[in-house]
């Protein structure tokens, strides 16, 4: 007998990122609007933007590949929307953002989304504190997680704010061994440069 719930018996492991995903160079010093929103950042070193998006209002940047350093921007997640694509909506639905959420609720939403999407119980939010996103009041939290079938312990840091009922979130995560410590300064520089304003017309 198999006791299998929530599609935990993995058969075909599908990656959200197609093998042919195109990369675009994000040049140091050039301000960029990200995640189809009014969220903008200015990189302090060159980054690579992935062509495919984790969700409609999200995009990811990397230095050496997402598995090693993953900067993801969520730009204006609206009320009752998920952070990223709800790929298994029927059997493993993702939690939804609510405009009334407080900072700890957002951290919990993020944790829950990762637990469901990565099929893991080893995910925790380790600290949370007030912070600024540009001139907006927001929050910063740290997290750590390990995915099933991989066993690589990853650390992450997130900066976010709810502006006009929409969630703006910048997250950086990398393997706890070597990569997180090496790249966190570059990621924080991106977060420090973040500004939330009206979305450009081209978006």
């Amino acid at each position, binding site marked *: *007998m198999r*006791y299998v719930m929530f599609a935990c018996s993995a058969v075909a492991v599908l990656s*959200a990122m197609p093998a042919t995903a195109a990369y675009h160079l994000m040049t140091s010093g050039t301000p960029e609007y990200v995640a189809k929103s009014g969220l903008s950042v200015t990189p302090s070193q060159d980054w690579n933007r992935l062509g495919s998006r984790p969700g409609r209002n999200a995009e990811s940047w990397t230095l050496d590949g997402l598995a090693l350093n993953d900067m993801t921007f969520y730009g204006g997640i609206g009320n009752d929307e998920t952070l990223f694509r709800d790929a298994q909506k029927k059997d493993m639905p993702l939690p939804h953002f609510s405009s009334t959420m407080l900072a700890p609720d957002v951290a919990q939403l993020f944790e829950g989304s990762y637990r469901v999407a990565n099929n893991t119980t080893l995910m925790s939010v380790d600290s949370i504190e007030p912070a600024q996103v540009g001139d907006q009041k927001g929050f910063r939290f740290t997290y750590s997680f390990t995915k099933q*079938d991989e066993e690589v312990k990853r650390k992450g840091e997130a900066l976010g704010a709810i502006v006009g009922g929409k969630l703006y979130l910048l997250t950086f995560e990398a393997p706890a061994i070597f990569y997180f410590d090496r790249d966190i300064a570059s990621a924080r520089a991106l977060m420090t440069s973040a500004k939330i304003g009206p979305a450009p017309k081209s978006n």
Partner: protein
Amino acid sequence: MILRRAALTGAALASLVRPALAGDLPVAPVSVAAQLPSQGLAYQPQDKVERGIWMQMDEAERKFRTSSFVIRDKALNDYVRGVFCRTVGDANCAGVRIYIVRTAAFNASMAPNGMMLVWSGLFLRVRDEAQFAAVLGHEYTHYANKHSLQLFREVEDRSAGMAFFGAFGLFGLPFMLGELGSAFAFSRDMEREADAGSVTLLAKAGYDPMAASKIWEQLRAEQDATAVARNVASRKDKNGGMFATHPPTAERMATLKDLASKQAVVGTPVTNRAAYMAALAPFWAGFVDDQIKLNDFGGTDFLLTSLGTEGWTPQLYYARGELLRSRGRPEDLKAAIDAYRSAATGVGAVPEAWRGLGLALLRNGQTVEGQDALRKYMAARPDAADKPMMTMLAGG
């Protein structure tokens, strides 16, 4: 972020199995007792197919041995092994390795090489030691009767089958052979054997043999609750779900109860609920937290309500508050406030309930009361990692 999704594809499965032919004979039920000597400590795989499966499972076990998902707490492991050995007998349990895996779903399996996996989600879904023993006994019967090996022998193209193993990933691999079973009608007979085997083992060990039928009733109801809350059809009778290879429930429940009523139990049958609850106690809050964060409101609500029939504890109230607050509809927040209030005071009060209460009150527009609750949380947990945020929310 990186997303990796797992999905069961029926087409991929179907391509590997030979369609059942009219002349195929069902697997003849083999008694548990007759098979037991074949799986002792000294047993070695007998042919190429069996060696192949063992090799795959040995490799999976090597990874589980160092996996961060395996719970290594000595007391819990000793307890689980103790129940297993009592159920199957010391001689039969000697060579079996048990791994308790932190995964919030109801699952247990036993691989042909003697590796048993128990998922942490199982602990919340069985109510006492007898029910726990029923699941272990069921899995042991599959193992003793070499059911997964019989299934794998039916795979037409074994080299493709081996590649198929890879697609399951480590956590799916031990359950892959079971999944394969859903393609064969005769796997129903294996389930009947395992059911019968578990009832026999329960009775021999002095456990209440009725425990086996109770588990399946509880799980069926939980599947319904999940489906209602998600507004989808219940998966309880669907292929690929945990009930896929089970005979129709009514028949199965009746058969299990009938078998149990005919069993002569040694001495007075026991359920050992107190011992079970004591063993689980240090892990209960963590396992419930895993369950709440699955975003399965209906299933979790059903589970908590079921546990509440034996008495609502502050821990249970806290879990209910967390569940309601995580969904966060206006009516949920109001109900969460009540639940947190019950959790925050009295014997066994949960200090974190003040945190949940404060956050729920703030979201509900009750700022003064909410800030007061958060201050009580910080007084109770002065070293909390979220103190800077809570201080701000509490008004500085």
